[in-house]
């Protein structure tokens, strides 16, 4: 298991966290790939990649940070779900993937 490099953030099962706690943890991970941005000010449904100007490598680094921090596997077919905060939180709560409307 790769050690969690997130330091100050204690690792917890995301399903045991409140939505606000999980949201704060996800924003902290986003801040590492986009240090100049303020992810906490984001709308839950806005496109993270566009709003934070993430390139494909930044986005991959963000997904890896989620994987390491929360200990969740991120299958290839699910990577699109993480493009909004809402999608990240739904995945972490274990909600099944709903096809895009």
């Amino acid at each position: 298991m790769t050690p969690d490099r997130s330091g100050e953030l204690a690792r917890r099962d995301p399903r045991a966290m409140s939505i606000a706690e999980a949201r704060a943890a996800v924003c902290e991970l986003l801040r590492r790939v986009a240090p100049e941005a303020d992810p906490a000010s984001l709308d839950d449904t806005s496109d993270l990649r566009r709003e934070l100007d993430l390139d494909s490598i930044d986005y991959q680094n963000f997904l890896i940070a989620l994987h390491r921090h929360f200990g969740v596997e991120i299958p290839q077919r699910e990577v699109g779900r993480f493009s909004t905060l809402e999608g990240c939180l739904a995945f972490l709560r274990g909600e099944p993937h709903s096809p895009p409307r």
Partner: protein
Amino acid sequence: MGALSVREFLMPTLGADMESGTLAAWRKQPGEMLHRGEIIAEVDTDKGVIDVEVFHDGRLVEQLVEPGTKVPVGTPLARLEPVAAGEQSLPVRGVAAAGTPEERPPESAERNERLRRATAAAMAASKRKIPHYYLATSIDMHSAVDWLASANEGRSIEQRLLPGVLLLKAAALAAREVPEINARWEAAGGEQCGDGGRAVTSGRVHLGVAIHLKGGGLVAPALHDADRRGLDDLMQGLRDLTERVRRGRMRSSELADATLTVTSLGDRGVERVYGVIRPPQAAVVGFGKIFERPWAVDGRVVVRPIVVATLAADHRVSDGHRGGRYLEAIDRLLQNPQRLEQAEDRA
């Protein structure tokens, strides 16, 4: 031992657009051994804090510049003593590591503005003085995309490859076939990009990867020996480089060594990008996004993922014929992605 001469370690040049740097902190103290590639000091520049590496093994004899001092490129920073093989480092007691390498430097609007201006000056000089020519070709990516999908199956997110890594590897291998693309223009008399001068092929392929900084400006740090590295290694290197660029922690060799730049506007951007050559390099390769398009195969129209590869190159160093050979080589390499993976040690 006495026959070995002490050598000066100079403030390195960190790109054509840098004239000076501020010594931020020493990472080694007098008496300590350094191996080639180890970090001796941190230098604060418009591109962030740069970890400065040494080129030779040696022992640090003396520090010549105090932290906080701004000095021009080429100024002696320290004296290093060569060390005979097998000699061990002196134990150093009670010396605290200088600086805190994990900390991000303070972001400042002023730094961003300086970097934006330096980028502007280098690009303006390039466009004014380098006779660019431009080529483009559309490449069918279906073999590469299919190969990637099966290579990624069952891999954890940490091991997954992105299409951009195949493009980088193909660009690096093709540069071996057409060495004029992987060259630098050495202008006579120190005039940047000037017409008097000569082309020198670079030998090793260190791909500069253009990364846009969110505060404005552009950096293109090098992925060293990209032609000889496996895809997993390159992917890891690209992720690490991007992560350090975001934190403002590049290494001196990454800023100084690029022999050919690749610019890619990623999977959300435009269909094609023509770059501006970063002097003293002699070419820049561009990749647009991969997008689906009708494509004729054996007299039938099918839908294929396509990427447009472009080349902007210095006409003093190569010409459209050779440039065309280079783009053809990229195309050919991308039709056999499994061979990109295998081409690790064909030095």
